C-alpha cells in the first residue's frame, strides 16, 4: 500500500517535471510556431541564476520564483529583439538561429561559471510515507506546477491580454486589423515563454544540479511533450505530460529508468502516428 503511494507520488512528480520544463516552449511554439532550440539553455540559465543568487546570500525561494524568471525573461526579450523578430514565419531558420544561440549560451555560461557541476541544497526536508522516505522537495515542485498551470489557464481564458494572445495565435491578420500590433504581442509572448523556462530551471536546480550543457537533458523531453500535446498551450502540455509522466514512471518502477525513457519515446512515435496534430488537435479544440 505504501509502495503504491510512492509510485503515485513519483508519477505526479514526473508529470510536474514534464509540464514545468515544457510550459515555456509550449507558449513560444504554440503561439508563434518558433522552434526554440535554445529552450534547454533558457532552463539552464534559470538554474544558474538561482545558484548565483543563493551563493550571494539571497533567499532561495525569492531567487528561484522571482529573480530567475525575471533574468531569463530579459534574456528572452533581448533575443527576441535581436534575432527572432526577423525570422517569424520561417520555421527552419528559427531552428538554425536558436541552435546557434544555444551554443553561444553554453559557451558564455562555461566562461562565467566554469565547466564543473554546481548545485544548491533542496530547501525542503524529506518526509516519511509509511516505511518509505520521500523527497519533500518533489511535493513542492508538484504544487508549483499546479499553481502555474492554473495561472496560465486563467490568464489565457479570462484576461484581455490572454484573449488577444489567443487571437494572435489563430490569425495575426485579424488581430492587426483590430488595431493590435502582432509583433508586439509576439515580443511579450516570447519574453513570457523565456521567463517560464527560467522559472522551471530555478525550481529544478536543487534536484538535478547543473552543468553548462544541462540544457540538452531538458530539450528533448520538452519537445516531445509539446509536439505530442498539440497546439493548445495549457491542455496540450498538461495532457501529454500526464500520459508520458505516467508511462515513464510505471515502466521505470517495473523495469528500469532507462527502459522508462525508451517507453516514453516509443509512445510518442505511436501517438504522433495516430494523431498528427497532437492530442489537443484531436480532442480539445478550444485553443487553450
Amino acid at each position, binding site marked *: 500500500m505504501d509502495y503504491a503511494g510512492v509510485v503515485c507520488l513519483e508519477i505526479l512528480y*514526473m508529470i510536474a517535471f514534464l509540464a514545468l520544463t515544457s510550459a515555456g516552449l509550449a507558449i513560444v511554439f504554440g503561439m508563434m510556431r518558433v522552434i526554440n532550440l535554445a529552450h534547454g539553455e533558457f532552463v539552464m540559465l534559470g538554474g544558474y541564476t538561482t545558484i548565483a543568487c543563493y551563493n550571494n546570500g539571497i533567499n532561495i525561494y525569492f531567487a528561484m520564483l522571482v529573480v530567475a524568471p525575471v533574468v531569463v525573461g530579459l534574456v528572452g526579450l533581448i533575443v527576441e529583439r535581436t534575432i527572432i523578430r526577423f525570422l517569424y514565419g520561417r520555421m527552419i531558420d528559427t531552428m538554425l538561429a536558436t541552435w546557434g544561440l544555444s551554443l553561444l549560451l553554453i559557451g558564455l555560461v562555461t566562461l562565467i561559471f566554469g*565547466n*564543473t557541476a554546481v*548545485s544548491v541544497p533542496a530547501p525542503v526536508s524529506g518526509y516519511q510515507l509509511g516505511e518509505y522516505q520521500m523527497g519533500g522537495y518533489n511535493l513542492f515542485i508538484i504544487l508549483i506546477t499546479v499553481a502555474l498551470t492554473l495561472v496560465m489557464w486563467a490568464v489565457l481564458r479570462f484576461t484581455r491580454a490572454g484573449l488577444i494572445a489567443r487571437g494572435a495565435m489563430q490569425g495575426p491578420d485579424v488581430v492587426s486589423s483590430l488595431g493590435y500590433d502582432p509583433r508586439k504581442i509576439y515580443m511579450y509572448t516570447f519574453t513570457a515563454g523565456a521567463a517560464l523556462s527560467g522559472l522551471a530551471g530555478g525550481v529544478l536546480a536543487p534536484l538535478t544540479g547543473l552543468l553548462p550543457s544541462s540544457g540538452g537533458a531538458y530539450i528533448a523531453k520538452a519537445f516531445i511533450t509539446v509536439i505530442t500535446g498539440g497546439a493548445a498551450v495549457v491542455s496540450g502540455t498538461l495532457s501529454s505530460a500526464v500520459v508520458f509522466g505516467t508511462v515513464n*514512471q510505471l515502466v*521505470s518502477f517495473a523495469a528500469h529508468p532507462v527502459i522508462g*525513457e525508451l517507453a516514453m519515446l516509443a509512445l510518442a512515435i505511436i501517438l504522433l502516428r495516430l494523431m498528427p496534430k497532437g492530442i489537443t488537435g484531436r480532442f480539445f479544440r478550444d485553443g487553450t
Partner: protein
Amino acid sequence: MTYTRREFLRAAGAATVAGGLPAVAFSADKEIKLGSVLDNSGNLDIYGKPMVIATRLAVDEINEAGGLLGRKIKLIQYDTQSDIALYTKFAQQLAREDKVDVVHGGITSASREAIRQTFKRSNTLYFYNVLYEGGVCDRNTVVTGTTPAQAVEPIVERAMKKWGNKVYVLAADYNYGQITAKWISYYVDQRKGTVAKTDFFPLDVADFGSTIAKIQQEKPNWVVSALVGGAHMSFYRQWAASGMNKKIPLASTTFGVGNEHLALSAAEGDGILIAGNYSQESTLPANKQFLAAWQKRFGDTKIVHEIAVSQYQGIKLWAECVRKAGSVDREAVLKAIESGASIEGPAGTVAIDAKTHHASLDINVMEVKNQKLAILETVKQRAPSDTARYCDLQKNPNENKQYEVDI
C-alpha cells in the same frame, strides 16, 4: 608593396641569420623531452585541468633541482579537448615528430587504449597515471593509478564490518562501472555477504526517484555507488533530499576523485565512505610540501584531486628510474622499473610492481566530512592483485592486452 617569392625567402633567410638563434645555456639535443596528452578543456576538464598543472609542477621542480642527469626536461603538452580523435593525432605527433623520451597522459580508459598501441609501436615509454578498472598488461606501459583490488576492497571490508552484509550496487553503464560492479560483488561474496541488486545507469540518467524507492524496498544495510559524471551527481542530491542519507549509509568507488565533495553541500555529502590514494587532508610532509608548491605557483589548491597527484607521482617515479638507469633510453629505464623503483609522493609510497608494471600504493579509507575527505585509516602498500591474477610481464614480456575479469 609586392614581394616575389625569391625576394621574400632571401629576406627571411637574412633575418634569421642576423637575429641568430636564441642563446641557450644547454644545447637543444641534450634536452630530455617529456610529452603529455590531457583534456585541458571540454567535458572532462574537471579531471584534466589539475592534471595539466600537476605535470608542469613536477617538471619545473625537477628542472629547478638541476634537471635529470644534468639535462633539462622540455615539456611538450597537448590539449586533447575531451575528443578521442585528438588523442590519436597528438599521440602520433609526440611519437613521430617530437620524438619524446616518455609520455605521461590519457584520462579515460578509452583514451588510454586509443594511444597505448601508438607508443608501443614507436617504442616510446608510456605512463598512465589514473585510477581505472585494472587489467592492462603491456611492458611498455606503466600504471600508477589505483585498481579495484586496491581501492574497492578496503571499502567493502570496512562497510561490511560497520554496516552489515546486504549491499545494493549502483554503477555507470560502461566498462568502468560494469567491471567495478563485478569486483564489488566478488569481494562481498568472499566475505559471505549478499548483493541485493545491481543497477546500471547510462551516463546521462539524472532521475533516480524510482531507484531510491526500489532501494528502500530491498532494505540493504548499505548502498555503494560507482556512478560517474555530472548527471549522476543528481543521485547524491536526490538521496539527501529524500532524507535517505540519514537512513541507509552510502559508500562510493568514484566519489571525490573529481572533487565531487565540493559540488555537494556539506549536509548532502557528509558520511559517504570512500577509499583512494589521496586526500588533501593527509598530514604527510610530502603532501604539505606539494600543496605549498602548488599554492605558490598556481594559486588555488582547492582543485587538487587524486589523479592530479597520481600524474605528479608518475612523473617523479619516472625521473627516479631515469636516475637509476643513468639514461633516458627506454630499455634502460624499463630495466630500472623492473628492478623495483619507488618514491615517496604526496600520497605516500609509490612502488612499482615488476610483474604487472602497476604500482603498490597506500590507500586511505575516508569519509566525507564538511566538504573535506577525512581520513579514517590508511592501509599501507596495497598491491594491484587484480591485474596480477592475469599478468606476469617477467614471464611473458611480449604480452600486450587488457585482460577482462572472469570472476
